[in-house]
Every structure is written in structure tokens, then in C-alpha cells.
């Protein structure tokens, strides 16, 4: 209710309003804070304010039933809690606030572009970072391969009915097997994961080997961080 709203005149008031107004006068502080605004049920807002600030939450039968009073009490309780938190809070540290804001923005940026999942309605999407992680993990299952980076992008084909994607994955590989076979195994693993783990239409997988792994570094299930990526 706006502060300059005209209050109902005494002739407009429901029967309980006079009593309610009398109640409000018992709480001059609350009335001072909340004004003499009346809720649609006729109760003064100051009464709800008083109840919101009451530790015991002593709601009377009307307040516990009335949706207007309940809504006002709920909102004022939240406001009161926020006010108390502000009072208790130390002065905000500008640096940590900036750090939190930067981190929030960075984590959003890290999600990457949103890729359309393979669904005709085109309203299901996955963050590129999430898809790339799954595809890198799939490449890692190929013996002698360690995925380094993975980019996924929609293929540029304006005439395609379904959106399809191109994957570019960079890996390190051991040299104990021909690289062509290894690259083909990576491609198959990525295509399989795209379809069966994600449900993402991928038509092209480009595999780039940009580092050599020592054979001992990828024996068994043990995986080591690459010194060069």
C-alpha cells in the first residue's frame, strides 16, 4: 500500500476495524514504524509487524487464519531477519564481495555455450563444459590415451533438420601402437558416449594427438597427470 494511499474512512471500515485500530494503539513503536496502514482484512499493519518481531510468535486466532495477516507476518519476519543480519554483519569487505562476484561470473562463463541435445523440440540443452567432460572421459577409456581438451560446437548447416555437432578432441598417446588405430578408437569411444551417455548428435570427431605419453604412465587403471598438455 502506498504511503499516500487514502485510508478507509470510518464509514468504510468493517466491524472489527475499530477494535483492531485500538489494538494497534497498544503498540505505538510498531505503529510508528509501519504506519497506520490497514491490511485488506482491516487489521493494522503495525499489528502484523509486532507479531513478526515477537520472539514467541504469539499469533492470535485471527492472524493464524487470515491470509492477509499471515502474508504480512511472513514478509515482515523475513525483513526483520534480514535487518538483524545486517546489524550483526561486519562492514562488507569490498574485496571479498568483488571476488565472489567474479567467481560467480567465471563459473557461468566456464559452462560454455549451450548445445542442443538430440530432441526434435529443441528445448533441451547441455553446457559445452559438461558434454566435453563426458567425451574426454570416454576418450580416456582407450588404452594408451589421455584426453587433454575437448571442444564441441554445432555444425554449421542451416538446412539440417536436426542440429548436429562437431567434436575436436586433443589427446596424448603412447607410441606402442599405431596412432591411426588409436585415433579411430578414440573417435568410436567419443561417438558412443555422445549417443549413449549424452544423447547428443555428433557427426564429426576430429582427433588431434599433441603429446606423447610414456608407456608406463598409463598402465592399468592408473592415470597420471600429463606434464605437457
Amino acid at each position, binding site marked *: 500500500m502506498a504511503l499516500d494511499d487514502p485510508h478507509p474512512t470510518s464509514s468504510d471500515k468493517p466491524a472489527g476495524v475499530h477494535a483492531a485500530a485500538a489494538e494497534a494503539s497498544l503498540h505505538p513503536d510498531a505503529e510508528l514504524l509501519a504506519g497506520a496502514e490497514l491490511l485488506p482484512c482491516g487489521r493494522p499493519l503495525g499489528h502484523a509487524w509486532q507479531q513478526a518481531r515477537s520472539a514467541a510468535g504469539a499469533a492470535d486466532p485471527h492472524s493464524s487464519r487470515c491470509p492477509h495477516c499471515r502474508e504480512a507476518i*511472513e514478509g515482515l519476519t*523475513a525483513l526483520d*531477519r534480514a535487518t538483524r543480519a545486517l546489524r550483526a554483519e561486519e562492514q562488507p569487505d569490498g574485496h571479498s564481495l568483488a571476488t565472489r562476484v567474479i567467481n*560467480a561470473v567465471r563459473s557461468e562463463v566456464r559452462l560454455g555455450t549451450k548445445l542442443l541435445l538430440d530432441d526434435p523440440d529443441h*528445448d533441451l540443452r547441455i553446457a559445452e563444459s559438461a558434454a566435453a567432460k563426458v567425451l574426454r572421459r570416454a576418450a580416456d577409456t582407450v588404452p594408451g590415451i589421455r584426453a587433454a581438451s575437448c571442444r564441441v560446437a554445432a555444425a554449421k548447416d542451416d538446412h539440417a533438420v536436426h542440429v548436429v555437432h562437431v567434436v575436436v578432441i586433443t589427446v596424448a598417446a603412447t607410441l606402442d601402437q599405431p596412432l591411426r588405430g588409436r585415433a579411430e578408437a578414440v573417435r568410436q569411444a567419443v561417438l558412443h558416449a555422445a549417443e549413449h*551417455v549424452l544423447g547428443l548428435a555428433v557427426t564429426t570427431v576430429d582427433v588431434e594427438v599433441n603429446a606423447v605419453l610414456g608407456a608406463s604412465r598409463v598402465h592399468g587403471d592408473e592415470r597420471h597427470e600429463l606434464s605437457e598438455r
Partner: protein
Amino acid sequence: MNASHHGNIHRAAARAALDVPGVLALQPALADRLALAASRVYEAVAAGATGRHEAAGVRCELTTVGAWHVEVRCILDKDHRVVDVARRVRENVRRAVTSYVAQQGRAAPVTVVVTVTRTV
């Protein structure tokens, strides 16, 4: 439609998404994250407005043509096929929101966009 109805739609959509097997959590959008970062008081306000946290990760808007557009951002369990879970989320959320607005006597078309932000 007032703020209370808007909040109820948020909560209905959030609950419907979280009910889908394979959905681990909802991921707040940047606006929610900035609000969290900007002020710890948000916590106090959010605690007072029941369900606000629960609904972070859901954005709802009433379009100019009177349809509800709902966006859900979720984190999924890696053991489920992503597109299958996303479809179930879309259907569950659409059904829940459609049902809520119909109960309010304001039947309106509902579109749902699901974004998977992570699998863990």
C-alpha cells in the same frame, strides 16, 4: 498473477524437476548467484521466503501472449542418459506448472527449457 502465484509456480517447477530420477540438484542462474554473492542478507531473506532456495535454478516468466515460459537448470547423475533425464524433467515440469495454473483458473500454455549444467 501476483508474486505469491509466481513463487508457487517456481516451487512447483523446482519440485517437479527434483522428483525426476537422475536429477541431483538445480543450478542457480547467474542472477541468483550474483544475488548470493552480493549480500549474505539474501540468505536471511531467502530463509524467510520459504522455498526461494529450493527454486533457485528455475526461472519463470509470463510472456506477452499469456504463456508461461519456464527454464530449469539442473545437475544430473552421470549414470543416467542425459537426454532421457532432460526429457523427463521437461515433461514433469510442464505437467506440474500446467496443473497449477489450471487450478488457479488461468489455463495457459507452458513451455519448458531444460539446461544440463553438469553431470557428477
